[in-house]
Protein backbone atom coordinates (compact mmCIF):
# COMPACT_ATOMS: atom_id res chain seq x y z
CA UNK A 1 0.00 0.00 0.00
CA UNK A 2 2.85 2.36 0.85
CA UNK A 3 4.47 1.53 -2.47
CA UNK A 4 1.38 2.60 -4.44
CA UNK A 5 1.03 5.79 -2.43
CA UNK A 6 4.72 6.62 -2.81
CA UNK A 7 4.58 6.06 -6.54
CA UNK A 8 1.84 8.67 -6.78
CA UNK A 9 2.64 11.19 -4.07
CA UNK A 10 6.29 10.65 -3.16
CA UNK A 11 7.70 9.35 0.12
CA UNK A 12 6.97 12.17 2.61
CA UNK A 13 3.37 12.69 1.53
CA UNK A 14 2.71 8.96 1.39
CA UNK A 15 4.08 8.64 4.92
CA UNK A 16 1.87 11.51 6.10
CA UNK A 17 -1.22 9.96 4.52
CA UNK A 18 -0.59 6.58 6.11
CA UNK A 19 0.23 8.13 9.47
CA UNK A 20 -2.99 10.13 9.60
CA UNK A 21 -5.04 7.18 8.38
CA UNK A 22 -3.33 4.94 10.91
CA UNK A 23 -3.90 7.31 13.82
CA UNK A 24 -7.55 7.59 12.89
CA UNK A 25 -8.31 3.94 12.29
CA UNK A 26 -6.19 2.55 15.11
CA UNK A 27 -6.16 5.13 17.89
CA UNK A 28 -9.56 6.72 17.29
CA UNK A 29 -11.71 3.97 15.80
CA UNK A 30 -10.46 0.47 16.58
CA UNK A 31 -8.65 0.58 19.91
CA UNK A 32 -11.40 2.52 21.74
CA UNK A 33 -13.99 0.00 20.55
CA UNK A 34 -11.81 -2.91 21.64
CA UNK A 35 -11.17 -1.23 24.96
CA UNK A 36 -14.91 -0.78 25.39
CA UNK A 37 -15.48 -4.48 24.78
CA UNK A 38 -12.69 -5.36 27.18
CA UNK A 39 -14.28 -3.10 29.82
CA UNK A 40 -17.64 -4.73 29.29
CA UNK A 41 -16.15 -8.14 30.08
CA UNK A 42 -14.64 -7.14 33.44
CA UNK A 43 -16.33 -6.62 36.80
CA UNK A 44 -16.60 -3.17 38.33
CA UNK A 45 -13.73 -3.06 40.80
CA UNK A 46 -12.13 -0.57 43.13
CA UNK A 47 -8.83 0.81 41.78
CA UNK A 48 -6.91 -1.28 44.32
CA UNK A 49 -8.48 -4.50 43.04
CA UNK A 50 -7.58 -3.94 39.39
CA UNK A 51 -5.12 -6.61 38.32
CA UNK A 52 -5.95 -8.62 41.43
CA UNK A 53 -7.59 -12.04 41.62
CA UNK A 54 -11.08 -10.63 41.06
CA UNK A 55 -10.05 -8.93 37.79
CA UNK A 56 -11.00 -11.66 35.36
CA UNK A 57 -13.11 -11.90 32.23
CA UNK A 58 -16.81 -12.42 32.89
CA UNK A 59 -20.11 -12.16 31.10
CA UNK A 60 -21.73 -10.88 34.27
CA UNK A 61 -22.36 -7.40 32.88
CA UNK A 62 -24.32 -8.86 30.00
CA UNK A 63 -26.29 -11.14 32.32
CA UNK A 64 -27.53 -8.01 34.13
CA UNK A 65 -29.64 -7.04 31.16
CA UNK A 66 -31.46 -10.34 31.21
CA UNK A 67 -31.97 -10.47 34.94
CA UNK A 68 -33.16 -6.86 35.19
CA UNK A 69 -36.75 -6.81 33.95
CA UNK A 70 -36.92 -3.04 33.60
CA UNK A 71 -33.72 -2.79 31.57
CA UNK A 72 -34.69 -5.69 29.39
CA UNK A 73 -38.07 -4.21 28.62
CA UNK A 74 -36.49 -0.83 27.83
CA UNK A 75 -34.00 -2.54 25.54
CA UNK A 76 -36.80 -4.32 23.69
CA UNK A 77 -38.91 -1.18 23.59
CA UNK A 78 -36.00 0.78 22.14
CA UNK A 79 -35.59 -1.89 19.47
CA UNK A 80 -39.29 -2.01 18.67
CA UNK A 81 -39.79 1.76 18.72
CA UNK A 82 -36.74 2.35 16.54
CA UNK A 83 -38.11 -0.07 13.98
CA UNK A 84 -41.42 1.75 14.15
CA UNK A 85 -39.70 5.13 13.75
CA UNK A 86 -37.81 3.76 10.75
CA UNK A 87 -40.95 2.47 9.07
CA UNK A 88 -42.89 5.68 9.81
CA UNK A 89 -40.06 7.81 8.47
CA UNK A 90 -39.94 5.73 5.30
CA UNK A 91 -43.70 6.04 4.80
CA UNK A 92 -43.60 9.79 5.31
CA UNK A 93 -40.51 10.29 3.14
CA UNK A 94 -41.29 8.11 0.16
CA UNK A 95 -44.02 10.27 -1.45
CA UNK A 96 -41.88 13.36 -1.05
CA UNK A 97 -38.83 11.65 -2.53
CA UNK A 98 -40.97 10.50 -5.45
CA UNK A 99 -42.35 14.00 -5.94
CA UNK A 100 -38.87 15.55 -5.89
CA UNK A 101 -37.36 12.99 -8.23
CA UNK A 102 -40.04 12.50 -10.85
CA UNK A 103 -43.00 14.87 -10.51
CA UNK A 104 -41.59 18.30 -9.69
CA UNK A 105 -40.08 20.52 -12.36
CA UNK A 106 -36.33 21.05 -11.94
CA UNK A 107 -36.93 24.51 -10.46
CA UNK A 108 -39.49 23.22 -7.97
CA UNK A 109 -37.23 20.35 -7.01
CA UNK A 110 -34.27 22.68 -6.48
CA UNK A 111 -36.35 24.95 -4.25
CA UNK A 112 -37.74 22.02 -2.25
CA UNK A 113 -34.28 20.60 -1.72
CA UNK A 114 -33.03 23.92 -0.45
CA UNK A 115 -36.03 24.07 1.92
CA UNK A 116 -35.27 20.54 3.09
CA UNK A 117 -31.64 21.30 3.75
CA UNK A 118 -32.32 24.31 5.96
CA UNK A 119 -33.82 22.40 8.94
CA UNK A 120 -31.14 19.78 8.44
CA UNK A 121 -28.51 22.39 9.25
CA UNK A 122 -30.28 23.33 12.45
CA UNK A 123 -29.30 21.74 15.71
CA UNK A 124 -31.05 18.51 16.58
CA UNK A 125 -31.61 19.82 20.10
CA UNK A 126 -33.37 22.91 18.82
CA UNK A 127 -35.51 20.96 16.40
CA UNK A 128 -36.53 18.67 19.22
CA UNK A 129 -37.05 21.59 21.56
CA UNK A 130 -39.56 23.13 19.17
CA UNK A 131 -41.63 19.97 19.44
CA UNK A 132 -41.38 20.22 23.19
CA UNK A 133 -43.11 23.60 22.94
CA UNK A 134 -45.79 22.34 20.58
CA UNK A 135 -46.60 19.19 22.52
CA UNK A 136 -46.47 20.64 26.01
CA UNK A 137 -49.53 20.42 28.25
CA UNK A 138 -50.57 23.99 27.67
CA UNK A 139 -48.95 24.22 24.24
CA UNK A 140 -50.39 25.32 20.91
CA UNK A 141 -51.41 21.85 19.76
CA UNK A 142 -53.65 21.31 22.77
CA UNK A 143 -55.02 24.85 22.40
CA UNK A 144 -55.88 24.29 18.76
CA UNK A 145 -57.53 20.94 19.46
CA UNK A 146 -59.56 22.41 22.28
CA UNK A 147 -60.57 25.44 20.24
CA UNK A 148 -61.83 23.23 17.45
CA UNK A 149 -63.70 21.22 20.01
CA UNK A 150 -62.00 17.94 19.20
CA UNK A 151 -61.02 17.48 22.85
CA UNK A 152 -62.41 18.83 26.11
CA UNK A 153 -59.24 18.88 28.18
CA UNK A 154 -55.55 19.00 27.23
CA UNK A 155 -53.74 15.73 26.48
CA UNK A 156 -50.37 14.89 28.05
CA UNK A 157 -48.54 14.17 24.80
CA UNK A 158 -45.17 14.09 26.55
CA UNK A 159 -45.96 11.35 29.02
CA UNK A 160 -45.62 8.30 26.75
CA UNK A 161 -43.49 7.24 23.82
CA UNK A 162 -45.69 9.08 21.30
CA UNK A 163 -43.94 12.41 21.71
CA UNK A 164 -40.53 10.73 21.44
CA UNK A 165 -41.49 9.04 18.19
CA UNK A 166 -42.97 12.16 16.63
CA UNK A 167 -39.77 14.02 17.52
CA UNK A 168 -37.58 11.27 16.06
CA UNK A 169 -39.42 11.04 12.78
CA UNK A 170 -39.03 14.80 12.52
CA UNK A 171 -35.36 14.79 13.47
CA UNK A 172 -34.23 12.02 11.13
CA UNK A 173 -36.53 12.44 8.16
CA UNK A 174 -33.83 13.96 5.98
CA UNK A 175 -31.57 10.95 6.42
CA UNK A 176 -34.35 9.02 4.71
CA UNK A 177 -35.53 11.52 2.10
CA UNK A 178 -32.14 12.14 0.50
CA UNK A 179 -30.97 8.56 -0.10
CA UNK A 180 -34.42 7.55 -1.38
CA UNK A 181 -34.61 10.65 -3.57
CA UNK A 182 -31.15 10.01 -5.04
CA UNK A 183 -32.07 6.43 -5.81
CA UNK A 184 -35.40 7.24 -7.46
CA UNK A 185 -33.86 10.08 -9.42
CA UNK A 186 -31.49 7.69 -11.18
CA UNK A 187 -34.45 5.70 -12.50
CA UNK A 188 -35.03 6.18 -16.21
CA UNK A 189 -38.31 8.04 -16.78
CA UNK A 190 -39.06 5.80 -19.71
CA UNK A 191 -39.30 2.77 -17.44
CA UNK A 192 -42.12 4.42 -15.52
CA UNK A 193 -43.80 5.48 -18.75
CA UNK A 194 -43.43 2.01 -20.20
CA UNK A 195 -45.00 0.47 -17.09
CA UNK A 196 -47.93 2.91 -17.31
CA UNK A 197 -48.19 2.22 -21.00
CA UNK A 198 -48.45 -1.48 -20.35
CA UNK A 199 -51.42 -0.78 -18.11
CA UNK A 200 -49.82 -0.88 -14.68
CA UNK A 201 -51.61 1.26 -12.10
CA UNK A 202 -49.88 3.62 -9.67
CA UNK A 203 -49.48 1.02 -6.95
CA UNK A 204 -48.17 -1.64 -9.27
CA UNK A 205 -45.76 0.75 -10.98
CA UNK A 206 -44.24 1.65 -7.64
CA UNK A 207 -44.22 -1.89 -6.33
CA UNK A 208 -42.69 -3.45 -9.42
CA UNK A 209 -40.57 -0.69 -10.95
CA UNK A 210 -39.76 2.21 -8.64
CA UNK A 211 -39.26 0.49 -5.29
CA UNK A 212 -37.02 -2.30 -6.65
CA UNK A 213 -34.89 0.36 -8.31
CA UNK A 214 -34.75 2.52 -5.17
CA UNK A 215 -33.75 -0.42 -2.93
CA UNK A 216 -30.20 0.72 -2.17
CA UNK A 217 -31.49 4.17 -1.23
CA UNK A 218 -34.26 2.75 0.92
CA UNK A 219 -31.79 0.43 2.63
CA UNK A 220 -29.39 3.30 3.32
CA UNK A 221 -32.18 5.47 4.68
CA UNK A 222 -33.47 2.69 6.94
CA UNK A 223 -30.03 1.85 8.29
CA UNK A 224 -29.21 5.47 9.06
CA UNK A 225 -32.61 6.20 10.59
CA UNK A 226 -32.59 3.11 12.77
CA UNK A 227 -29.06 3.81 13.96
CA UNK A 228 -29.89 7.41 14.79
CA UNK A 229 -33.15 6.47 16.51
CA UNK A 230 -31.74 3.62 18.60
CA UNK A 231 -28.70 5.70 19.49
CA UNK A 232 -30.57 8.92 20.17
CA UNK A 233 -30.13 10.55 23.51
CA UNK A 234 -31.39 14.06 22.88
CA UNK A 235 -34.92 13.29 21.72
CA UNK A 236 -35.98 10.95 24.54
CA UNK A 237 -34.23 13.17 27.06
CA UNK A 238 -36.19 16.20 25.90
CA UNK A 239 -39.53 14.74 24.86
CA UNK A 240 -39.68 11.64 27.03
CA UNK A 241 -40.95 11.25 30.55
CA UNK A 242 -39.54 9.12 33.38
CA UNK A 243 -41.92 6.41 32.25
CA UNK A 244 -40.66 6.34 28.68
CA UNK A 245 -36.92 5.97 29.05
CA UNK A 246 -34.70 5.02 26.14
CA UNK A 247 -31.85 2.49 26.31
CA UNK A 248 -29.25 5.23 25.78
CA UNK A 249 -30.49 6.86 28.96
CA UNK A 250 -29.86 3.67 30.90
CA UNK A 251 -26.33 3.60 29.48
CA UNK A 252 -25.80 7.21 30.47
CA UNK A 253 -26.97 6.46 33.99
CA UNK A 254 -24.49 3.61 34.39
CA UNK A 255 -21.68 5.97 33.47
CA UNK A 256 -22.57 9.18 35.25
CA UNK A 257 -24.97 8.21 38.00
CA UNK A 258 -24.37 4.54 38.78
CA UNK A 259 -20.62 5.01 38.33
CA UNK A 260 -20.33 1.53 36.85
CA UNK A 261 -18.47 2.00 33.57
CA UNK A 262 -18.05 -1.71 33.01
CA UNK A 263 -21.78 -2.23 33.15
CA UNK A 264 -22.28 0.80 30.90
CA UNK A 265 -19.75 -0.52 28.40
CA UNK A 266 -21.61 -3.82 28.20
CA UNK A 267 -24.88 -2.02 27.50
CA UNK A 268 -23.21 0.22 24.93
CA UNK A 269 -21.81 -2.81 23.17
CA UNK A 270 -25.25 -4.41 23.14
CA UNK A 271 -26.60 -1.26 21.49
CA UNK A 272 -23.85 -1.48 18.89
CA UNK A 273 -24.64 -5.15 18.27
CA UNK A 274 -28.30 -4.18 17.86
CA UNK A 275 -27.41 -1.61 15.19
CA UNK A 276 -25.02 -3.94 13.38
CA UNK A 277 -27.66 -6.67 13.49
CA UNK A 278 -30.29 -4.39 12.01
CA UNK A 279 -27.86 -3.21 9.34
CA UNK A 280 -26.91 -6.76 8.35
CA UNK A 281 -30.57 -7.74 8.23
CA UNK A 282 -31.50 -4.81 5.99
CA UNK A 283 -28.50 -5.38 3.74
CA UNK A 284 -29.46 -9.03 3.40
CA UNK A 285 -33.17 -8.31 2.83
CA UNK A 286 -32.45 -5.65 0.23
CA UNK A 287 -29.45 -7.46 -1.20
CA UNK A 288 -27.19 -4.42 -1.07
CA UNK A 289 -23.54 -4.09 -0.14
CA UNK A 290 -21.55 -1.59 1.87
CA UNK A 291 -20.47 0.15 -1.32
CA UNK A 292 -24.09 1.07 -2.11
CA UNK A 293 -24.59 2.66 1.26
CA UNK A 294 -21.84 5.26 1.24
CA UNK A 295 -23.20 7.50 -1.44
Amino acid sequence: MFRQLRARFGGPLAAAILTLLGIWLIVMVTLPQLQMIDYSLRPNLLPAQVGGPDDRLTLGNYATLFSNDIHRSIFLKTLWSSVLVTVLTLVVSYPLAWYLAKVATPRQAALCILLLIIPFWINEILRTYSWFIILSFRGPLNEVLMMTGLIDRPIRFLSGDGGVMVGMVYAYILFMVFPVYNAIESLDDNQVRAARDLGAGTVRTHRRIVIPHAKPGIATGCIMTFMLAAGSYAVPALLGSPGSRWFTQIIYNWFFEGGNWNQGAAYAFLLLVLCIGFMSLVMKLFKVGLGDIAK
Partner: protein
Amino acid sequence: MSSQRLLAFGLRFYVVVFFLYLFLPLLIMAAATFNDSRFPTVTPWDGTTLRWFGELAADGGMWQALGNSVIVAFGVLCLAVPIGISTALFLNTVSSRAKPFLYALILSPLLTPGVIIGISTLIFWRQFGVSGGIFLTVLGQATFIAAYVMLMVTARLQRFDRTMERAALDLGASQWQMFRRILLPYLKPAILSAAVIAFLQSFENYNTTLFVVGYDTTLTVYIASKVRTGLTPAVNALGLILILVTVVLAVAYEVKRRREEAARARA
Protein backbone atom coordinates in the same frame (compact mmCIF):
# COMPACT_ATOMS: atom_id res chain seq x y z
CA MET B 1 -57.95 9.53 -15.89
CA SER B 2 -59.66 11.54 -13.16
CA SER B 3 -58.29 9.20 -10.50
CA GLN B 4 -54.83 9.94 -11.88
CA ARG B 5 -55.52 13.65 -11.50
CA LEU B 6 -56.81 13.11 -7.98
CA LEU B 7 -53.61 11.29 -7.13
CA ALA B 8 -51.48 14.07 -8.58
CA PHE B 9 -53.43 16.62 -6.56
CA GLY B 10 -53.12 14.47 -3.48
CA LEU B 11 -49.37 14.33 -3.91
CA ARG B 12 -49.08 18.09 -4.20
CA PHE B 13 -51.25 18.55 -1.13
CA TYR B 14 -49.04 16.12 0.72
CA VAL B 15 -45.91 18.04 -0.23
CA VAL B 16 -47.41 21.27 1.14
CA VAL B 17 -48.42 19.58 4.39
CA PHE B 18 -44.94 18.06 4.62
CA PHE B 19 -43.22 21.40 4.43
CA LEU B 20 -45.63 22.89 6.97
CA TYR B 21 -44.72 20.01 9.26
CA LEU B 22 -41.06 20.77 8.61
CA PHE B 23 -41.19 24.49 9.32
CA LEU B 24 -44.10 25.05 11.68
CA PRO B 25 -42.20 23.86 14.76
CA LEU B 26 -39.34 26.21 14.00
CA LEU B 27 -41.70 29.12 13.47
CA ILE B 28 -43.53 28.42 16.71
CA MET B 29 -40.27 28.26 18.58
CA ALA B 30 -39.18 31.54 17.03
CA ALA B 31 -42.50 33.16 17.88
CA ALA B 32 -42.28 32.02 21.49
CA THR B 33 -39.13 34.12 21.85
CA PHE B 34 -41.19 37.27 21.72
CA ASN B 35 -43.90 36.15 24.12
CA ASP B 36 -43.72 37.92 27.46
CA SER B 37 -44.44 34.69 29.35
CA ARG B 38 -42.30 32.97 31.94
CA PHE B 39 -42.50 29.72 29.99
CA PRO B 40 -41.63 29.19 26.33
CA THR B 41 -44.99 28.98 24.62
CA VAL B 42 -47.21 30.88 22.20
CA THR B 43 -50.45 30.13 24.05
CA PRO B 44 -51.52 32.20 25.81
CA TRP B 45 -49.86 35.28 24.32
CA ASP B 46 -48.94 37.51 27.25
CA GLY B 47 -47.71 40.44 25.22
CA THR B 48 -44.73 41.02 22.94
CA THR B 49 -41.28 41.58 24.39
CA LEU B 50 -37.58 41.56 23.49
CA ARG B 51 -36.41 41.06 27.05
CA TRP B 52 -35.34 37.44 26.51
CA PHE B 53 -32.58 38.60 24.21
CA GLY B 54 -31.30 40.80 27.01
CA GLU B 55 -31.43 37.93 29.49
CA LEU B 56 -29.59 35.74 27.05
CA ALA B 57 -26.83 38.31 26.58
CA ALA B 58 -26.42 38.49 30.35
CA ASP B 59 -26.05 34.72 30.67
CA GLY B 60 -22.36 34.14 31.35
CA GLY B 61 -22.68 30.35 31.14
CA MET B 62 -24.00 30.66 27.61
CA TRP B 63 -21.04 32.74 26.46
CA GLN B 64 -18.65 30.33 28.10
CA ALA B 65 -20.33 27.40 26.32
CA LEU B 66 -20.30 29.23 23.00
CA GLY B 67 -16.57 29.84 23.36
CA ASN B 68 -15.99 26.14 24.09
CA SER B 69 -18.07 25.14 21.05
CA VAL B 70 -15.97 27.32 18.78
CA ILE B 71 -12.72 25.95 20.21
CA VAL B 72 -13.95 22.37 19.82
CA ALA B 73 -15.16 23.00 16.26
CA PHE B 74 -11.76 24.42 15.25
CA GLY B 75 -10.01 21.52 16.89
CA VAL B 76 -12.22 19.08 15.00
CA LEU B 77 -11.55 20.95 11.77
CA CYS B 78 -7.79 20.70 12.24
CA LEU B 79 -7.99 16.97 12.91
CA ALA B 80 -10.87 15.71 10.76
CA VAL B 81 -10.08 17.58 7.54
CA PRO B 82 -6.49 16.29 7.14
CA ILE B 83 -7.60 12.79 8.12
CA GLY B 84 -10.53 12.89 5.72
CA ILE B 85 -8.36 14.11 2.85
CA SER B 86 -5.70 11.49 3.55
CA THR B 87 -8.28 8.74 3.65
CA ALA B 88 -9.83 9.86 0.37
CA LEU B 89 -6.38 9.94 -1.28
CA PHE B 90 -5.62 6.54 0.18
CA LEU B 91 -8.82 4.98 -1.15
CA ASN B 92 -8.32 6.62 -4.53
CA THR B 93 -4.76 5.35 -4.89
CA VAL B 94 -4.42 1.98 -3.26
CA SER B 95 -5.70 -1.27 -4.64
CA SER B 96 -5.19 -4.15 -2.31
CA ARG B 97 -6.95 -7.24 -1.14
CA ALA B 98 -7.34 -5.67 2.29
CA LYS B 99 -9.24 -2.72 0.82
CA PRO B 100 -12.83 -3.93 1.33
CA PHE B 101 -12.05 -4.56 4.99
CA LEU B 102 -10.37 -1.18 5.38
CA TYR B 103 -13.27 0.47 3.61
CA ALA B 104 -15.74 -1.06 6.04
CA LEU B 105 -13.58 0.13 8.92
CA ILE B 106 -13.41 3.62 7.44
CA LEU B 107 -17.20 3.80 7.10
CA SER B 108 -17.89 2.27 10.51
CA PRO B 109 -17.89 5.59 12.44
CA LEU B 110 -20.78 6.74 10.24
CA LEU B 111 -22.81 3.65 11.08
CA THR B 112 -22.03 3.63 14.79
CA PRO B 113 -24.37 5.50 17.15
CA GLY B 114 -22.79 8.71 18.39
CA VAL B 115 -23.16 7.73 22.03
CA ILE B 116 -20.98 4.68 21.46
CA ILE B 117 -18.24 6.72 19.85
CA GLY B 118 -18.35 8.99 22.89
CA ILE B 119 -18.31 6.09 25.33
CA SER B 120 -15.45 4.23 23.67
CA THR B 121 -13.37 7.40 23.45
CA LEU B 122 -14.00 8.13 27.13
CA ILE B 123 -13.05 4.60 28.20
CA PHE B 124 -9.96 4.42 26.00
CA TRP B 125 -8.39 7.62 27.27
CA ARG B 126 -9.09 6.88 30.90
CA GLN B 127 -6.08 4.53 31.03
CA PHE B 128 -3.83 7.48 30.09
CA GLY B 129 -5.35 9.59 32.82
CA VAL B 130 -7.30 11.76 30.38
CA SER B 131 -10.84 12.46 31.51
CA GLY B 132 -13.75 14.17 29.79
CA GLY B 133 -13.20 17.70 28.53
CA ILE B 134 -12.51 19.72 25.45
CA PHE B 135 -9.65 17.49 24.28
CA LEU B 136 -11.72 14.31 24.33
CA THR B 137 -14.65 16.13 22.76
CA VAL B 138 -12.44 17.07 19.82
CA LEU B 139 -11.18 13.48 19.48
CA GLY B 140 -14.63 11.94 19.77
CA GLN B 141 -16.27 14.25 17.27
CA ALA B 142 -13.38 14.08 14.81
CA THR B 143 -13.68 10.27 14.80
CA PHE B 144 -16.89 10.33 12.79
CA ILE B 145 -16.65 13.78 11.19
CA ALA B 146 -13.46 12.64 9.42
CA ALA B 147 -15.57 10.04 7.62
CA TYR B 148 -17.92 12.76 6.35
CA VAL B 149 -14.95 14.74 5.08
CA MET B 150 -13.65 11.59 3.38
CA LEU B 151 -16.95 11.07 1.55
CA MET B 152 -17.07 14.63 0.27
CA VAL B 153 -13.45 14.69 -0.87
CA THR B 154 -13.80 11.26 -2.47
CA ALA B 155 -16.80 12.41 -4.50
CA ARG B 156 -14.69 15.09 -6.15
CA LEU B 157 -11.53 13.03 -6.37
CA GLN B 158 -13.36 10.40 -8.40
CA ARG B 159 -13.96 12.97 -11.12
CA PHE B 160 -10.29 13.96 -11.27
CA ASP B 161 -8.60 13.23 -14.57
CA ARG B 162 -5.35 11.55 -13.63
CA THR B 163 -3.64 12.50 -16.88
CA MET B 164 -3.28 15.95 -15.22
CA GLU B 165 -1.00 14.29 -12.73
CA ARG B 166 0.98 12.61 -15.46
CA ALA B 167 1.22 15.86 -17.38
CA ALA B 168 2.58 17.67 -14.33
CA LEU B 169 5.22 15.00 -13.70
CA ASP B 170 6.09 14.90 -17.38
CA LEU B 171 6.72 18.65 -17.30
CA GLY B 172 9.24 18.10 -14.53
CA ALA B 173 7.19 18.62 -11.37
CA SER B 174 8.09 16.58 -8.31
CA GLN B 175 5.26 14.58 -6.76
CA TRP B 176 4.96 17.16 -4.02
CA GLN B 177 4.76 19.99 -6.59
CA MET B 178 2.11 18.03 -8.46
CA PHE B 179 0.10 17.63 -5.26
CA ARG B 180 0.51 21.27 -4.25
CA ARG B 181 -0.15 22.87 -7.63
CA ILE B 182 -2.54 20.48 -9.37
CA LEU B 183 -4.37 18.09 -7.06
CA LEU B 184 -4.90 20.34 -4.04
CA PRO B 185 -6.30 23.29 -6.05
CA TYR B 186 -8.62 20.84 -7.77
CA LEU B 187 -9.86 19.49 -4.44
CA LYS B 188 -10.15 22.93 -2.84
CA PRO B 189 -13.92 23.43 -3.32
CA ALA B 190 -14.67 20.02 -1.83
CA ILE B 191 -12.28 20.63 1.05
CA LEU B 192 -13.88 23.99 1.83
CA SER B 193 -17.37 22.47 1.76
CA ALA B 194 -16.19 19.64 3.95
CA ALA B 195 -14.67 22.13 6.38
CA VAL B 196 -17.96 24.04 6.64
CA ILE B 197 -19.92 20.84 7.17
CA ALA B 198 -17.37 19.60 9.70
CA PHE B 199 -17.60 22.85 11.64
CA LEU B 200 -21.39 22.71 11.77
CA GLN B 201 -21.48 19.03 12.62
CA SER B 202 -19.16 19.66 15.49
CA PHE B 203 -21.06 22.73 16.62
CA GLU B 204 -24.41 20.96 16.83
CA ASN B 205 -23.21 17.58 18.05
CA TYR B 206 -24.84 16.30 21.18
CA ASN B 207 -24.83 12.52 21.47
CA THR B 208 -21.07 12.01 21.31
CA THR B 209 -20.24 15.21 23.15
CA LEU B 210 -22.47 14.34 26.10
CA PHE B 211 -20.19 11.48 27.11
CA VAL B 212 -16.80 13.07 26.59
CA VAL B 213 -17.36 16.69 27.53
CA GLY B 214 -16.76 16.15 31.25
CA TYR B 215 -17.26 19.28 33.36
CA ASP B 216 -16.86 21.56 30.34
CA THR B 217 -19.94 22.58 28.40
CA THR B 218 -20.52 23.17 24.71
CA LEU B 219 -23.38 25.28 23.49
CA THR B 220 -25.50 22.30 22.49
CA VAL B 221 -24.99 20.62 25.82
CA TYR B 222 -25.79 23.92 27.51
CA ILE B 223 -29.05 24.31 25.59
CA ALA B 224 -30.07 20.76 26.39
CA SER B 225 -29.41 21.28 30.10
CA LYS B 226 -31.40 24.53 30.00
CA VAL B 227 -34.33 22.79 28.36
CA ARG B 228 -34.38 20.21 31.11
CA THR B 229 -33.81 22.52 34.07
CA GLY B 230 -34.27 26.27 34.14
CA LEU B 231 -36.50 26.64 31.17
CA THR B 232 -37.16 30.24 30.05
CA PRO B 233 -37.74 31.74 26.60
CA ALA B 234 -34.10 32.86 26.68
CA VAL B 235 -33.38 29.45 25.18
CA ASN B 236 -35.70 30.36 22.34
CA ALA B 237 -33.82 33.60 21.79
CA LEU B 238 -30.60 31.62 21.50
CA GLY B 239 -32.29 29.11 19.20
CA LEU B 240 -33.67 31.86 17.00
CA ILE B 241 -30.25 33.47 16.63
CA LEU B 242 -28.66 30.10 15.80
CA ILE B 243 -31.40 29.33 13.28
CA LEU B 244 -30.97 32.68 11.57
CA VAL B 245 -27.20 32.25 11.41
CA THR B 246 -27.48 28.73 10.01
CA VAL B 247 -30.16 29.69 7.51
CA VAL B 248 -28.04 32.54 6.19
CA LEU B 249 -24.98 30.27 6.05
CA ALA B 250 -26.94 27.43 4.45
CA VAL B 251 -28.48 29.62 1.78
CA ALA B 252 -25.15 31.33 1.03
CA TYR B 253 -23.42 27.97 0.80
CA GLU B 254 -26.11 26.50 -1.45
CA VAL B 255 -26.15 29.52 -3.74
CA LYS B 256 -22.37 29.43 -4.05
CA ARG B 257 -22.38 25.71 -4.72
CA ARG B 258 -25.05 26.02 -7.41
CA ARG B 259 -23.27 28.89 -9.06
CA GLU B 260 -20.09 26.81 -9.23
CA GLU B 261 -22.02 23.87 -10.61
CA ALA B 262 -23.57 26.07 -13.29
CA ALA B 263 -20.14 27.46 -14.14
CA ARG B 264 -18.80 23.95 -14.44
CA ALA B 265 -21.70 22.92 -16.66
CA ARG B 266 -20.96 25.85 -18.96
CA ALA B 267 -17.25 25.09 -19.19
